[in-house]
């Protein structure tokens, strides 16, 4: 049995936050289906909001796992989450409309088995290990499917691999210009894992506060969302693209100013640095 090293007081209980994150991300990802219903692409940005809900949940899970001192650093948990999450997510995209739910379930199953390997075969003996790695793999899968839905407006395998292009008036299937064929999935992978691991990695230590950590995660999540919005230029119309960028920038600005406010609240003292004044006359 490994002793818990740091315990943060206050804040929402982890299970409550998990339910919020889970429902928030599924609802967000499913709202992109309005694209198909209404025949537009304007609702793509909901995928990014769903991904951020999952990121906030995952950040709290990382905090719970890493408070036991796993010794390998916080980023390794994020890498494990996305390494297993991308595997779950890609298989889940084969299940059509059920993809986000399948991604969640597959992530939990794959993560659960990996957690068992880490906890029992590798004898880590951390009480929350299996549950945490299962949650993290599910978070990884949901974030990837959310950002993918935002970039392309859809979350099923065929449209992610093939897109119809018109060459000299004739319609043709193009594989190289799709999200998977073009390799943009790798960019989404890194954007998501940076957002997931940065919050707790930056805020850990004495007087860590849950709201500040999670606000930072959401802030980095919105920055990633902005990059995904720019990636989506290749797949969705200019109107939907502008909507995505505006939502990302507003979300980033709000969470950034909130994070600065919370940092000022938690800081012992706050001194605004001024530019170094050059002494004159030498």
């Amino acid at each position, binding site marked *: 049995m490994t002793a818990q090293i740091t315990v943060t007081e206050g804040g929402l209980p982890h299970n409550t936050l998990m339910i919020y994150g889970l429902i928030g991300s599924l609802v967000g990802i499913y709202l992109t289906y309005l694209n198909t219903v209404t025949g537009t692409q304007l609702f793509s940005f909901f995928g990014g909001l769903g991904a951020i809900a999952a990121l906030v949940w995952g950040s709290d899970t990382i905090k719970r796992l890493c408070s036991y*001192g796993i*010794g*390998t650093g916080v980023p390794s948990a*994020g890498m494990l989450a996305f*390494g297993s999450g991308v595997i779950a997510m890609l298989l889940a995209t084969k299940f059509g409309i059920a993809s986000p739910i399948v991604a969640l379930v*597959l992530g939990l199953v794959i993560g659960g088995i*990996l957690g068992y390997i880490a906890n029992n075969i590798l004898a880590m003996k951390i009480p929350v290990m299996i549950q945490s790695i299962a949650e993290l793999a599910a978070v990884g899968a949901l974030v990837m499917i959310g950002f993918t839905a935002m970039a392309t407006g859809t979350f099923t395998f065929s449209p992610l691999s093939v897109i119809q292009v018109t060459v000299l008036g004739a319609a043709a299937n193009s594989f190289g210009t799709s999200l*998977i064929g073009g390799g943009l*999935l790798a960019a989404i992978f890194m954007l998501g894992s940076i957002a997931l691991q940065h919050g707790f990695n930056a805020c850990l230590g004495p007087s860590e506060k849950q709201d500040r950590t999670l606000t930072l995660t959401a802030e980095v999540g919105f920055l990633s969302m902005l990059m995904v919005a720019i990636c989506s230029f290749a797949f969705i119309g200019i109107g939907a693209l502008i909507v995505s960028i505006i939502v990302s920038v507003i979300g980033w600005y709000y969470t950034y100013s909130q994070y600065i406010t919370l940092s000022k609240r938690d800081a012992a003292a706050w001194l605004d640095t001024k530019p170094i004044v050059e002494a004159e006359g030498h």
Partner: protein
Amino acid sequence: MSALGGAGPAPGGAMDPVSSVIGLVLAVIFIGIVFVLAPAALMPLLGIILGGVLIGFGVHFVPVGGAPAAMGQAPGIATGVAMLAAGAGLAGLFGGAWAAELGVVVATITGAIGGGLMMAITCLMVNVIYVFGMGIPAASGKVAKDPLTGDTQAEYKSQGTEGHGLPFISFVGGVVGGLFGGGGGTLIYLMLLGVYEQYLPALFDAKVEQIMPVAVSLAGIFAIGMFLVNAVLAAYNITGTIEGPHDPKFKRFPRAIVASLVASALCGLVAILIVVVNLNI
């Protein structure tokens, strides 16, 4: 790196027989599912498992120093396994992927050389920074004499530290780890690429040349995912830091081999299922 201390398994690293057997049974079940659903993908799955085991084994050679190494208080490269794996292992994977059309043997060796070269450059620059930037010599804290060169270590070790810098044995360990990691990652990529080249044309009703971008990207992203899973599991086995092959923690590697075997069988199964499951919805 986390500022939180390293806890976890006790030194020595005895295998837990019950959970190891459960893990191996799971691996056999995963292999059995592939054998039933896609017999042609059975050999690639075994290749994927071999690649994953090579990665998990290779991580044990790499001198991962972590935060203490960044402060010059422990030997090794001053970062975590996840970063070293992403740097060195993926360099090997990309190197091997370029040589994919020259056959499995050439491509795997190319990937191994890519990973080993990247680790050699990393280790060299780490020592340059330690010696000329921080002004500390290389000394191991775990052994009295370097097993390869026979150089004594204690005179160079500062009091209150576990050693510092990269001694020769750690340098060699880093390169060997890079060889294993790069080769293993490339092997996973090649096996998956073969499976996708075989199944995707029928799935999309297209020619092999047309689906190549999708096959390459899918194999690449799955290989990256499996690489990170295996590397992080191996990192959990060494609780974050290790000096190299001479470190007592190195003896824990059988546990990591079982873990990588089960994890690679699981991930390989899912990666193969993506072309087998065809629901048309």
